[in-house]
């Protein structure tokens, strides 16, 4: 039995028996592969309206409070499909593994991927495994691609009066990772919000026709996504800072480090632009789902500030929330 090896060897990606056994005994067994292994998964697809997406995951550390790279890789791709209105069905799993990775770590990640997919009602049906020399990657990188279907996708122009809804607290994922990774000497209770959102999005089905756009605000956070919504349009978005939900620990760590939670990544939240007067209805539907308990209307599309995202601050002033150039850096003085 080759998987009794403690660590991944270069040979596990060589195309020979080592790889064959690894795929059979770890991946196929966990993901529940059926029958003969062909070069492609051959699947029955229920619709002609197909959504297709891919994403790569290089998070460090591999395991963090609230999740791990496997859960993240499955949730992330499910979410990219869900927010265009699609029901995700099938995923692929591409692995790039660093020579020397502990076998138990790989098994744990694969198990987590399967658990997440199963819970979301999605199947992992194809994959690929490569092993690179020690030092050529950082432990484990994962790529997932996914397909889903819908009768109608969310792809409309935003209009003045439209309302902005967010499904919960912002900045949790990025701050949890930061706290787990950097040697700040801080203990926090922060957990990543990482979760598949297809269930939450489907609770909105009665209101699908009222939804103009939906996104999961990952890298760049809420402010970056909303900037993308208004960029190049003739209207602006005005948020109310007091309404935007943030966890106390996120706010505290942000203050300490000089970061802005509105620009920090989320992995289990959606932000929605919906027709005027429908925000509260969406909120009441989402609050019935465990991942949408803190849903709230946070702002609206306005005629002022064309092309810009603005916010009424806690102190009552108004400011612009611009697109960030690159990562936020902690303050220096």
């Amino acid at each position, binding site marked *: 039995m080759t998987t009794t090896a403690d660590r991944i060897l270069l040979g596990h990606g060589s195309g020979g028996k080592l790889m064959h056994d690894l795929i059979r005994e770890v991946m196929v067994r966990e993901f529940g592969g059926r029958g003969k292994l062909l070069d492609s998964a051959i699947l029955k697809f229920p619709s002609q309206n197909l959504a297709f997406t891919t994403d790569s995951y290089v998070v460090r550390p591999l395991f963090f409070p609230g999740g791990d790279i496997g859960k993240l890789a499955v949730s992330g791709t499910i979410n990219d499909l869900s927010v265009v209105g699609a029901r995700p069905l099938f995923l692929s799993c591409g692995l790039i593994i660093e020579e020397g990775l502990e076998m138990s770590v790989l098994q744990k990640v694969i198990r987590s991927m399967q658990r997440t997919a199963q819970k979301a009602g999605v199947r992992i049906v194809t994959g690929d495994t490569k092993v690179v020399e020690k030092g050529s990657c950082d432990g484990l990188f994962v790529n997932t691609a996914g397909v889903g279907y819908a009768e109608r996708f969310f792809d409309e122009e935003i209009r003045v009066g439209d309302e902005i809804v967010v499904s919960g607290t912002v900045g949790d994922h990025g701050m949890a990772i930061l706290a787990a990774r950097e040697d700040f000497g801080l203990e926090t209770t922060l957990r990543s919000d990482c979760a598949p959102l297809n269930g939450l999005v489907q609770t909105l089905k009665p209101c699908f026709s009222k939804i103009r756009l939906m996104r999961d605000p990952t890298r760049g956070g809420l402010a970056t996504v909303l900037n993308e919504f208004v960029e190049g349009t003739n209207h602006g978005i005005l948020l109310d800072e007091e309404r935007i939900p943030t966890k*106390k620990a996120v*706010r*505290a760590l942000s*203050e300490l480090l*000089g970061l802005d939670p509105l620009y920090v990544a989320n992995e289990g939240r959606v932000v929605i632009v919906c027709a005027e007067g429908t925000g509260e209805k969406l909120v009441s539907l989402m609050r019935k789902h465990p991942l949408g308990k803190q849903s709230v209307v946070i702002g609206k599309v306005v005629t002022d500030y064309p092309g810009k995202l603005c*916010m*009424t*601050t*806690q*102190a*009552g*002033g*108004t*400011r*612009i929330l*611009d697109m960030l*150039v690159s990562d936020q*850096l*902690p*303050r*220096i*003085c």
Partner: protein
Amino acid sequence: MKFVEEFRNKEIAAGLIRRIEESLGGRQVSLMEVCGTHTMAIQRFGLRSLLPKNLKLLSGPGCPVCVTPNELVDLAIAYAMKQGVILATFGDMAKVPGSSTSLLKAKAAGGRVQIVYSTMDAVKLAEENPDKQIVFFGIGFETTAPTIAAAILQAEQNGLRNFFVVTAAKTIPLAMEALLQGEVRIDGFICPGHVSVIIGSNAYRHIAEGYHAPCIITGFEPLDILQAAEMLVQQVRDGRADVENQYSRVVHEDGNAAARGILEKVFEARDANWRGIGVIPGTGLGIRSEYARFDAQVQIPVETEKTVENKLCICGLVLKGAKEPTDCRLFAKRCTPENPVGACMVSGEGACAAYYKYH
């Protein structure tokens, strides 16, 4: 959050603004915030949009990144490119353009630049790389300077022979005096909160008395800043020029004696070149001869390129409060946070970056 959110209350803010308007009457008043963190807070909470039009807030030279002149950026770049040296720097400094390139670009071209979050990270870097010379680019005001001094003392205690500092550290009060002697009308100062924690409120007495310029030390929350503005406007109305401490929950009259102690132990006053303002006597912090073995410029000679300044950039005038960022022909056109021409567009606390980001 305790001691944060109480200071962001909308109703109290509205009350303060009403009182500022009353005290102002019809007067035109110009106040300068000297600290970059105040500049950021004013923008972040949209305070300008709340204040009456006849109260002008000028942004002073309070960002240590912004006031570091090209020649020192060029020097840091020369160290980064030197064989056997790792240049350790705070993140913002890496993006500042020097005469022909920046530390970040020098890094891409093969230079060794390590971004650190604290001075002690630079000491640790020296411990971990005994075969390399670590040169720390020591920028900052009285707030950061004691940590640079502490790093030097720590390196001495640990017997490190490979830790060096390029000091670009500066002190604030004499620079405020220099600004009062300039052409810009300043009716009062919003004094820096963090700096004052170290130097104490008494450090501003000679400014208030000698130049009849009211000084209020304040914190960084909206109510702090608005209350400071109210106190300043009242002083202007009453013809007073006192030092008042709005930030008494943090700042004491004499400051932090321990921090000042190590500052004085390691550093001595020198003349310093401030970007765009020029040399202000006695505002630099040079390493004393007793600690010369940690002084990069003494121990590791390097050749630097000829200093070139962009003639169109008005960072200097912005830092003095003579111009606003939006007065600059380069602002938001050739000079953006992605592609900065002047340092004020680089740092998170630079006036141009703050205007760009929040305006």
